[in-house]
């Protein structure tokens, strides 16, 4: 994986930059010691590492603005960072960049139950946003698997989803307003506690822009009242096709579960060995969760079970109490940990039309044989967001490269059947070079034009999202300055 060579001009001006930043930041907010900058050398995509030139940890929008203004004046690239949990390398530094971490900005600014919104600083973790409104029985809906650690800043940058977004939507559907600092230090306010910010939908294009358009320091988020209750059902089938057909029938029947999760045999076996959740050994497992009052849950589960039965399940288990519900979710929630226990793995994130599920699973099986690498599938079936886990041996020379090639083939397959490269993890550096499989050069040019407007000198997270060959002209202008 290529990253642009660091600029000698910028590296030579490090001392000058440090002096300027030190004038606007408290001492503990500026990290320049090599041993300490190493902490920011990678995010959760640990295969790629590079310590930044500097890291800064501002505590206010004003400090963020000062840092960006200085970096803008000196032509120094800035890589924004939330909690560093990106699986796509979205926060991977370059050697000549400043890492701008928002982790110290984690306050709740206002919880407004009458208007059902919360305003937070974006360094706050996803789960602690819900935590802040839990006493009033409210919650923040998007729930990425990393929600204990990941920051709202990163959620906005990647437009994060989660298991329950089938009903509640992803970040962009729950984000109402932001305070954002532009690369030149200008602070802008977009949207707020009212719906549908006026003018062009800038909020919509900022969300998911992977930190390339601005640094969001505060966010107004929609909060919802918790449902009265929730209960899952577990259904096992002896083929992936049948499980896929069951999912499609449930959706067609007008039931809208909050989550439909799918696991295949390799994943079931790994989870069972790891978590001992008591899963049946079969080809495909569905976990379907519905919400409401006890009677409403009974009714919806009744409909789901009727549809499930018509497809002859090998197992059907309805949770009778919280303990059983917990056991049904236990394996699924530990799936990634379980796979990590037995193997190195690479987690993919393509999305496909739900109707293509059986075909895509069959093709993934064929690719697995062709490459000689195992694949376990665990994913959000209701919205077609797949997470194939390709198993490889990091100590075996060539295995990582083989795994990456196979991953690329699976993602190309997702695009071929009408889907996309990434459903919720983002492009980052990981899928950057596959973008031309989904988009034509003209399609990408339209996206680049957006960045040209927000960040004309291409200083914010410049080497991500788009193939380097496509952005070279734009980035090169800056380096030659």
């Amino acid at each position, binding site marked *: 994986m290529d990253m642009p060579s660091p600029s000698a001009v910028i590296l030579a001006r490090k001392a000058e930059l440090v002096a300027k930043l030190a004038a606007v930041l408290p001492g503990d907010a500026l990290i320049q010691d090599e041993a300490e900058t190493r902490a920011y050398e990678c995010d959760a995509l640990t295969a790629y590492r590079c310590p930044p030139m500097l890291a800064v940890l501002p505590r206010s929008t004003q400090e963020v603005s000062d840092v960006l203004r200085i970096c803008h004046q000196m032509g120094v690239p800035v890589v924004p960072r939330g909690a560093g949990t990106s699986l796509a390398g979205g926060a991977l530094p370059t050697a000549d960049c400043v890492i701008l971490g928002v982790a110290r900005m984690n306050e709740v600014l206002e919880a407004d139950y*009458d208007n059902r919104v919360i305003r937070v600083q974006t360094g706050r973790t996803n789960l602690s946003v819900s935590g802040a409104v839990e006493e009033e029985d409210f919650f923040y809906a998007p729930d990425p698997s990393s929600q204990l650690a990941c920051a709202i800043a990163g959620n906005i940058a990647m437009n994060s989803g989660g298991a329950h977004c089938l009903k509640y939507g992803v970040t962009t559907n729950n984000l109402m307003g932001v305070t954002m600092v532009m690369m030149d230090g200008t602070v802008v306010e977009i949207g707020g506690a009212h719906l549908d910010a006026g*003018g062009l*939908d800038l909020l919509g294009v900022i969300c998911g822009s992977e930190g390339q358009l601005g640094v969001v320091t505060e966010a107004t988020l929609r909060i919802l009242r918790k449902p009265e209750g929730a209960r899952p059902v577990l259904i096992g089938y002896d083929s992936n096709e049948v499980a896929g057909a069951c999912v499609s029938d449930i959706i067609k029947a007008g039931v809208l579960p909050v989550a439909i999760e799918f696991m295949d045999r390799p994943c079931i076996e790994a989870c069972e060995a790891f978590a001992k959740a008591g899963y049946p050994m079969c080809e495909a497992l569905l976990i379907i969760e519905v919400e409401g009052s006890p009677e*409403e849950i009974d009714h919806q589960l009744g409909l789901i079970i009727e549809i499930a039965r018509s497809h002859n399940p090998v197992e059907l288990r309805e949770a009778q109490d919280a303990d059983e519900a917990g056991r049904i979710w236990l394996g699924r929630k530990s799936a990634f940990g379980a796979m990590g226990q037995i193997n190195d793995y690479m987690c993919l994130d393509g*999305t496909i039309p739900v109707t293509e599920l059986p075909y895509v699973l069959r093709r993934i099986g064929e690719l697995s044989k062709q490459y000689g690498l195992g694949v376990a599938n665990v994913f959000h079936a209701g*919205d077609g967001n797949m997470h194939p886990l390709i198993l490889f041996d990091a100590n075996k020379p060539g295995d990582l490269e083989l795994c990456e090639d196979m991953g690329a083939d699976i993602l190309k397959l997702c695009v071929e059947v009408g889907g996309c490269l990434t459903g919720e993890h983002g492009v980052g550096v990981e899928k950057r070079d596959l973008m031309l499989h989904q988009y034509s050069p003209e399609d990408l040019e*339209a996206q680049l034009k*957006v960045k040209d407007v927000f960040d004309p000198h291409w200083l914010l997270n410049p080497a991500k999202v788009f193939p380097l060959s496509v952005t070279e002209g734009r980035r090169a202008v800056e380096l030659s300055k």
Partner: protein
Amino acid sequence: MKKMMLKPKSETELVEVIADAGGPLCIQGGGTRGFASDGEVLSTRGLSGVELYEPGALTMVARAGTPVAEIEALLAQSGQRLAFEPMDHRGLLGSDGEPTIGGVFAANVSGPRRIQCGAARDFLLGVRFVDGAGHVVKNGGRVMKNVTGYDLVKLMAGAHGTLGALSEVSFKVLPEPEAEATVQVGDVGLSVAVQVMSAALGSPYDVTGAGYDPDTRKAYVRIEGFSSSVAYRADRLSADLAQFGETQQVERSADLWRGIRDVSAFYGREGDVWRISVKPSDAVALADQLQADALQFDWGGGLVWALVPEGVDLRARMGVSGHATLVRGSAETRMRLGQFHPQPAPLAAISAGLRAKFDPRGILNSGLMG
């Protein structure tokens, strides 16, 4: 003088029309929504037809000029619908013509259910459009979750054709619920009505509509879903909201919400009509400031429809944050005031920058959006 109308029948023809344009173009779907700019009319009605509909995947792909009525009829056959409940502007504006799906998304037209399930922009999954230089651009796709590159889909939703002419849209649809019910609370003033709606929207009963009619002094709360569940939740809401006023279930729920969606209370009444989006709890202060002839409230108080004498700039009277759009007004008023809320300077600069990039000649609906 009768305007010439350009009516391409394919995306290729749309490219030619835009690339060859010698002056400003007024991009139009059905032309029912009162957003007309100067220039030669470029109708998308020739780009019509549903290209793909997968009920099991809750997705549809249609050409931009496809009539909304055709789409709704097709969805109804599979028991599905456009859940964001797009308003029909014809009654309020006295316009005729056939609303198109491209127009719905270009203007981000949503109805009462916006508070629960999202706006038109939240349902738009993918677009194809032709920018001002005649380039075809696609963005997004037809899957529910997609973070591959920048979300130009959202940017196009609500851009009113200023960044490009939509040629194709793909969008999410949802099942039609088995039943709906509406609980009304009367006889209440605006301040109590906002409390009623806030309490309902903050309940666990999944409210899909919350409106208030000051003429009848009734607040309305809608729930939808399976019959037994709707009955249960209607009972619970009736009990919980009784502290604010007399609660009762409305007989003709669907008709009531169609009226709220289309602002039928203002039909046939003289004056300009403004649509204002504010924080719901600001509705009371706003109503005091506006000095309007008539008001209607949706979205729990967050969407305010105001009827005022011709030519008044209502934005000057708002006094709270939010934004106002002049939905109905004479050509002179629209020209003088502008239909859209002016943006703060840094945002206006970004918007102008985007328009200059996507439409370098400034020919696409050039009079719209400031």
